[in-house]
């Protein structure tokens, strides 16, 4: 059941240049899963639309969510100034999220091996996914890509997965992108889950070949609930809503099977 609610900030910290880690107590936490997102509202009357931010974590007591985001404009800049105890308006929980059940059976019979690929600000949602897959008994490999050695969240992946890192400048792990790291480490997998910049997702769609790759897409959004048709992606099959091969990223997605979308 979606709702607009008022959450309360538990804590916030800057964990890398321009990257913030925000924990919010909210009733939305009860329904929140990996791959889904919430719309966060600013306190600035000139910036009215909710900012879609993916869920990086859900507390074990299901009472709070964790959002790790990058300051990209006046909206997110305002979020970065939120302090413990501040109220923040949220719309959620939005989006389909990853299908843990389907991923658990990706190994067809034998134990399923899932490869998580995250790039830049696409990394946060992968952490909650690693946690949920690990809890489901899936063997998880995580490969996270950063620009340089100023990483974030990296160490937290180790609790749930075999963790690898790629950096563009080679200052840490494999020099190059996440796929370079996958090849370099000869990582085996039955399915891929990925979130990151479009060029990375295109390369992963290509790389996955016969195997399933579930990618999380981004687009400018307005309503966030599937009404305005602002955020769409071309699909191979006729979409169930408009029947024009345009799926709604906010509602039919943001997670899509790579072969189903034209990116």
């Amino acid at each position: 059941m979606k709702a607009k609610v008022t959450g309360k900030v538990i804590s916030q910290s800057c964990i890398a240049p321009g990257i913030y880690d925000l924990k919010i107590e909210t009733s939305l936490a009860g329904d929140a899963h990996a791959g889904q997102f919430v719309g966060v509202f600013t306190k600035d009357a000139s910036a009215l639309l909710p900012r879609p931010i993916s869920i990086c974590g859900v507390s074990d007591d299901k009472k709070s969510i964790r959002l790790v985001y990058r300051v990209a404009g006046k909206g997110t800049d305002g979020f970065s100034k939120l302090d413990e105890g501040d109220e923040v308006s949220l719309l959620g929980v939005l989006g389909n999220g990853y299908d843990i059940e389907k991923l658990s059976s990706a190994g067809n019979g034998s134990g399923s091996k899932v490869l998580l690929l995250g790039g830049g600000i696409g990394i946060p949602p992968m952490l909650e996914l690693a946690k949920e897959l690990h809890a489901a008994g899936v063997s998880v490999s995580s490969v996270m890509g950063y620009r340089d050695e100023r990483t974030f969240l990296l160490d937290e992946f180790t609790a749930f997965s075999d963790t690898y890192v790629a950096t563009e400048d080679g200052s840490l792990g494999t020099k190059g992108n996440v796929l370079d790291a996958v090849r370099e480490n000869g990582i085996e997998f039955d399915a891929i889950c990925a979130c990151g910049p479009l060029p990375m997702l295109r390369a992963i769609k290509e790389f996955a070949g016969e195997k399933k790759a579930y990618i999380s897409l981004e687009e400018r959004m307005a309503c966030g609930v599937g009404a305005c048709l602002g955020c769409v992606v071309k699909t191979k099959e006729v979409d169930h809503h408009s029947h024009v091969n345009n799926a709604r990223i906010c509602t039919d997605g943001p997670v899509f099977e790579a072969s189903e979308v034209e990116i």
Partner: protein
Amino acid sequence: MMKTEVTIAGVTFKNPVMEGSGTFGSGMEYSEFVDLNKLGAVVTKGVANVPWPGNPTPRVCEVYGGMLNAIGLQNPGIEVFCERDLPFLSKYDTKVIVNVCGRSVEDYVEVAERLSDEDRVDMLEINVSCPNVKEGAIAFGTDRNCLENITSQIKAHTKKPVIMKLTPNVTNIAEMAMAAESGGADAISLINTITGMKIDIERRRFALANKTGGMSGPAIKPVAVRMVYQASHAVKIPVIGMGGIATGDDAIEFMMAGATAVSVGMMNFVNPYATIECVKGIEDYMTRHGIEDINEIIGCV
């Protein structure tokens, strides 16, 4: 006993609050947030004779106090609409206004005829003013003669009351209102979005793939109130007012300007409960000012 009912072209609405076409789908998405039974009417997303894919992305962007959109009227076409959306709406005790879009007079007429026998449809709203569709549709809304002509042709092919939705991107809104009236329109609704543009100066490109988009939100409210005032004083048919409405007080302002009913548009995105809060806000205003019948305040300034 407070009376919030208003009547337009023989159709009585339990209250004057609807939502703006294109901001509410066919009600499905927002039925998770609001009880559709509490709305005066549900105005559906524009539907054409055949499915429309709409424009490339990005289709939306934020501007100061509002947003720009260039969706391009993506819609599944009239058949899917009748098979899926109308049955859904049949479950609710509210009026249904179907917004109709097209690229030619024939397109509009085809949809109007198809809906004539659908009992669940109370009124048609003709979108001749979408700023994001290239093919002529905009001319229907900005040329007095085109508007009168398309109005009379649609009226000739449907038994349903017809609302002509006017664009604000004109020199003289009163003239357009009169053209719709002389074409036989049962009512007019305004304003549609105001054409705007945003440029991403860091990337040196337009914020929208369509370059221009329709502006909506609180930022355009003063223009909308002015046009509702001018249009409602130029014609005898009822006016449905819209443009940045967020609260009951906003709704009251539009009604004092001359609107018989109002629509909540972009603000649904900011507050999914905006429609029912408008209904409540109107009732609060009536109580505060001892108004027994909401019709008393229509055009009272």
